[in-house]
């Protein structure tokens, strides 16, 4: 046969093309990549040491030596923000991963098994939705001390609920789709159907929601650290830096503004990327 084979555009490629036209989302992606690279390299590229104090210097406004100024102990603010970012991002990613694993498994099992199991599992999710989680996290941190591992677990345990609902809804909808029924009528095994037909079609919403969970997790961490119930010194995070900044904001406003701007910018970037992914992966906007 001498016909030329046309190469098709998969939905993933189509989504990537759409995303690459969305400048806000690309900007978000660039910021996140930059932040991740900087965080990994911080110990080598930070201008000063993490513990380096200069009590004689005290708080100074931004200058050539200290681009973002120094705090009341004369510590370089840029260095503090870089180290704080390592913690904030780590919490964001790991707690999201916890939420992702629990949520996807829970939702997928409920969606697949269906019937009574599904009813019970989703009832549990409903009940947990009604619980005052913020209060529980505060309680956990008070009771068990301010442990970073516990923080991952606690935040992850809150954020998985929505993921479970999304995955379950997606699986339920897919199970009713005719192409899944066609796969059944071909006699494919349950596992083959899951692997080839369900998972690839569930991935889109999961990716979108994961991207949108990271900022809400980081916000929660910053919230707790701000109250003094999250990350503890000597470790530092953006929430904690904002907390310190507030205490001295009347005299040294940059100590509040710089960590604040960094946190907000990161949240922006993640939200833009999430929104962009949502638009790009939405099958309704794809050409047919």
């Amino acid at each position, binding site marked *: 046969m001498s016909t030329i084979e046309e190469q098709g555009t998969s939905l993933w490629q189509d989504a990537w093309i759409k995303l690459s036209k969305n400048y806000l989302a690309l900007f978000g992606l660039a910021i996140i990549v930059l932040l991740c690279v900087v965080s990994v390299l911080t110990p080598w590229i930070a201008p000063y040491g993490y513990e380096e104090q200069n009590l004689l210097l005290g708080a100074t406004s931004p200058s050539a030596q200290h681009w973002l100024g120094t705090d009341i102990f004369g510590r370089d603010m840029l260095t503090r923000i870089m180290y704080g970012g390592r913690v904030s991002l780590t919490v964001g990613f790991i707690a999201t991963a916890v939420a992702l694993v629990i949520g996807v498994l829970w939702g997928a099992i409920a969606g697949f098994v269906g019937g009574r199991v599904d009813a019970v599992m989703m009832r549990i999710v409903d009940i947990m939705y009604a619980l005052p989680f*913020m209060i529980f996290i*505060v*309680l956990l941190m008070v009771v068990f001390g301010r442990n970073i591992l516990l923080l991952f677990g606690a935040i992850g345990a809150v954020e998985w609920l929505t993921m479970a609902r999304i995955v379950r809804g997606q699986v339920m909808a897919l199970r009713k789709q005719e192409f899944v029924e066609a796969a059944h009528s071909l006699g494919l095994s349950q596992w083959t159907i899951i692997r080839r037909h369900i998972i690839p079609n569930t991935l889109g919403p999961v990716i979108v929601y994961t991207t949108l969970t990271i*900022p809400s997790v980081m916000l929660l961490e910053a*919230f707790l650290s701000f109250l003094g119930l999250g990350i503890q010194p000597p470790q530092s995070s953006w929430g904690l830096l904002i907390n310190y900044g507030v205490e001295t904001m009347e005299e040294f406003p940059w100590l509040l*503004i710089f960590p604040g701007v960094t946190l907000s910018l990161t949240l922006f970037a993640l939200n833009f990327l999430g929104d962009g992914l949502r638009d790009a992966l939405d099958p309704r906007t794809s050409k047919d």
Partner: protein
Amino acid sequence: MLRFVFYRLLQAIPVLLIVISLTFMLVHSAPGGPFSADKAVPPEVIKALEAQYNLDQPLWQQYISYLGDVLKGDFGPSFKYPGRDVTELIAAGLPATAELAFYAMLVALVIGVSAGVAAAMRPNTAQDYIPMSAAMIGICMPSFLLGPLLVLVFGIYLEWLPVSGWDDMPGDKILPAITLGTGYAAYIARLSRGGMLEVLSQDYIRTARAKGLSEPLIIAKHALRGGLIPVIAFLGPAFAGLLGGSFVVETIFQIPGLGRFYVQAAFNRDYTMILGTTVFFSTLIIVFNLLSDMLAIWLNPKLRQQTRGES
């Protein structure tokens, strides 16, 4: 509807029981007793204190008697404020928190819904982009950052508004309400825009246009009810979030409310206070979730009839 409320209230009982048990167990499994912070206290004094608070009894007995007390609305005495009951402290803090939450919700709903509806009416124009960009900023600007910044600008530099207190000076409620409400206004704006866009693309809106109804009437009568359902469903969770947010806002603005009490109790390890407020907050949140669900059902004739059909 009555039957629906009854069932939901019935379901709330196990949820509350779980909350109470979980909190009780957490608090009592905490390493170190409530009085261990005071190092210099001799052991016999601790013993006496523990006896006073029934801490020398077996755990299950404490649990049963606590449950009994909670049923009577008695959350027991505070550990840190001797002579004062937790119930009394909650009653003292509640008005300020309730008022703050009310104003914040008002800010969130009024700004959020009007911005969202305005954006949905002319999508992909300035009328959409400007409020939605503002909403994005609102979402990425957490209350603990927005509050101090507002204080810095309006309180310290411009000196327009008081920076702390509650019911002390005129206008001292403006900044806290905005701080707490902004994030939710932003979220509600996005929800209502999405909901309205969905509804405005429905066939029945085209029918209304084809009938010659005016655009404002179409929005108000045909679109709003369906378009705001996501917002109504969000009201319950939003209320829970507002209570959590009050921790921060009341701390920043030094408002004598429940949130600040709770944070202080957390730091002071005032266990009965923590236990009491948690149970109280949970009850409130469950009630508000129920109310927001009822509202959503009442607005949808199909669901309304189904729940009526049940009774």
